[in-house]
């Protein structure tokens, strides 16, 4: 198993590099880009939602704040566009400090309520500061990223693809590092039994804050990427649509595993693109898909594939000894 995981890193990188060479159609490239972006978001959200078990609904807020930071920076100040990406990550982290306040005292669904309201408040803040944010008009005309003289959009968005792929790869590394570290284990410990964890010297607030900020950083960067990709930011980014979309990804893929949300992002993006013209049927199919997966595979698609791997990898012997 261990050998397999080590081999998987370069394999993953190679796949990411080769993919756009196989899919040269710009529409397919766009799908790949979206998968990578949603994958980043879903994986980073899963740190708090899945591993730490915090009902964190502020992630969408961090995504939006990242996007707005970039929008404001590149249209209102003359900040170098590439620099806007890390700055957006930082501003999302700062916002996460505010969103974290309720987590200090609240538990469970109450955290969900408070953090959801945080995202809603972002909308009102944006609308209220119309001078800076364009209000309900949004920020338009965000210039595309360029590398030297070539736009990342050129050649079927190959530039955006590789940027997204690089960010996704970094996210995967980050999430894996966190999950396999003591931090990751302490999160599970807190989720299992908070009192016991605290009496073992784990600080709930500190550990939760760390993952909260880590998740926010990734979401902020993803938001910045989104702003450059679309060239426009508006308050939809804080809306219910993204919330359900990303939750579908996480739980379809499997919230218990590192890669589950990524798998979910790929599947949901494909399905929703395939059903682009289906109007209301698109949501019906996606919702039905989530429910079916929840019914038959509690651990999501990732859990299913793991089971399949296990069965295939070590036939019966494992079960006999247990």
């Amino acid at each position, binding site marked *: 198993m261990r050998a397999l995981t080590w081999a998987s890193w370069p394999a993953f990188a190679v796949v990411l590099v080769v993919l756009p060479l196989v899919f040269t159609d710009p529409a397919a490239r766009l799908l790949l880009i979206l998968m990578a972006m949603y994958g980043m978001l879903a994986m980073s959200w899963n740190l708090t939602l899945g591993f730490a078990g915090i009902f964190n609904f502020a992630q969408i807020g961090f995504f939006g704040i990242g996007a707005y930071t970039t929008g404001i920076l590149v249209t209102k100040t003359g900040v170098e566009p590439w620099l806007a990406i890390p700055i957006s990550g930082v501003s999302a982290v700062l916002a996460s400090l505010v969103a974290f306040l309720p987590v200090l005292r609240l538990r469970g669904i109450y955290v969900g309520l408070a953090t959801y309201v945080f995202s809603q408040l972002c909308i009102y803040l944006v609308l209220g500061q119309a001078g800076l944010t364009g209000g309900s008009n*949004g920020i338009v*005309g965000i210039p595309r990223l360029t590398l030297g003289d070539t736009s990342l959009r050129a050649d079927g968005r190959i530039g955006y693809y590789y940027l997204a792929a690089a960010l996704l790869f970094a996210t995967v590394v980050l999430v894996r590092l966190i999950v396999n570290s003591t931090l990751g284990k302490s999160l599970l410990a807190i989720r299992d039994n908070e009192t016991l964890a605290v009496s073992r010297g784990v600080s709930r607030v500190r550990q939760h804050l760390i993952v909260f900020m880590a998740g926010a950083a990734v979401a902020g960067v993803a938001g910045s990427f989104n702003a450059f990709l679309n060239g426009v930011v508006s308050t939809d980014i804080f809306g219910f649509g993204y919330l359900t979309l990303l939750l579908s990804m996480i739980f379809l893929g499997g919230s218990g595993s590192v890669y589950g949300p990524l798998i979910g992002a790929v599947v949901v993006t494909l399905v929703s693109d395939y059903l*682009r013209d289906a109007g209301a049927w698109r*949501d019906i199919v996606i919702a039905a898909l989530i429910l079916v997966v929840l019914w038959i595979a509690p651990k999501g698609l990732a859990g299913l594939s793991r089971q399949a791997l296990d069965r295939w990898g070590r036939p019966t012997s494992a079960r006999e000894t247990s």
Partner: protein
Amino acid sequence: SSSSSTTSTAGAEGGGKVLEIGLLAPLTGPSASDGLGMKQGAELAIKQINDAGGVAGHTFKLNTVDVQGQSNDAVTKGVQTLTDNENVKAVVTGYASTSNFEIDEFAAAEKLYLIGGNTAQTQGIIQKNPAKYPTVWSITPNYDAYGTEPVDLADKWAAEGLWKPRNKTAFIVRSDNPYSESIADGLVKQFTAKGWKIAGQEKVPFGPVNDWGTVMAKIRSADPDFIVNTDYQVANEASFMQQFLQNPTKSLVFLQYGPNQPQFFELMKKQADGVLFNNLAGLVPAENYEPAMKLQQDWKAAYGTDAVDPQGAVTYAEVKLYAEALAKVGDPDDVAGIGAYIGKSDTQQATGRVVFDQATHLAKQGDDFVPLQSFQFQDQKKVLIAPDKYKSGTFRLPPWMK
């Protein structure tokens, strides 16, 4: 592009090639009924064209993209899908986003884009450098008239003695979106210029407004002569009106755009009587205007109602406009040629005579071009009360003022 020209000719000889026409429309979400109208209009036009044997050897197929609740994200994705698709030769819409940012995308991708709504935004984008947008044309004219006409009409009615303002005061309700805001700003300016007093203003958030109670309370305490609500969303306007009628003041009520949608009347029925509204882009419902009557008949045959959706009239005209240009230019890949032809065209559409202003790429506004039609519901009918050229009735005092 001589090679593509040959392929299209070859295609024509081989029994006709199918071209796709893109449609951006809010098929789901709060504006879904507008989206449905857009789709119906475009489909009707395409069907008529295909039934007549197509254009220059081509038949059309509609490629609809749902922009959901005008969300920028969905619009972006839709635009990218359509621009990435080689078979899509032109894109039409009633309106897609609230800011029309997609104009830049289509211009950059050199796709033909015919648009209806948010002309202030279109104008803002295009007039900076019209040469950059040879393929983008708006068949809806500048909205400036929205900001002046109601005031001018009110003064006219007063002058004609149809109505006696008590102290020339107006109350203006606006919604927090560019369309409503720019019209409300125009109205405030015009009212003040014409010697009216603004008795009060209220801004509501963009989106569903459920309870107008507190706004009503303010209106009642201001007791104005004229109330304007520029929140164009039909549900909001209907509930505004219903709540107003619970305890009305002696004021004329003008509602921006919403009452044009068939839905408004379906919801309000008798309560609609007396409501004033206007429209720049919908079908001109005048017996003496042939293109409009024809569309009304066709619409009834296709969809069983003669209430032509205003957005449907827009997309119908857009498709027709494109088909005519293609017929002249011949090569669907000569986008620049088609764009240039459209820009110079002068056609009679169901929405009026469409001639484009070269500085803004908007259709020209005026009684001889695309007219601003003012309506009032009277005896449960939508009556055109201005301009005189087309009108079928005259202004009456609304029932709550009698």
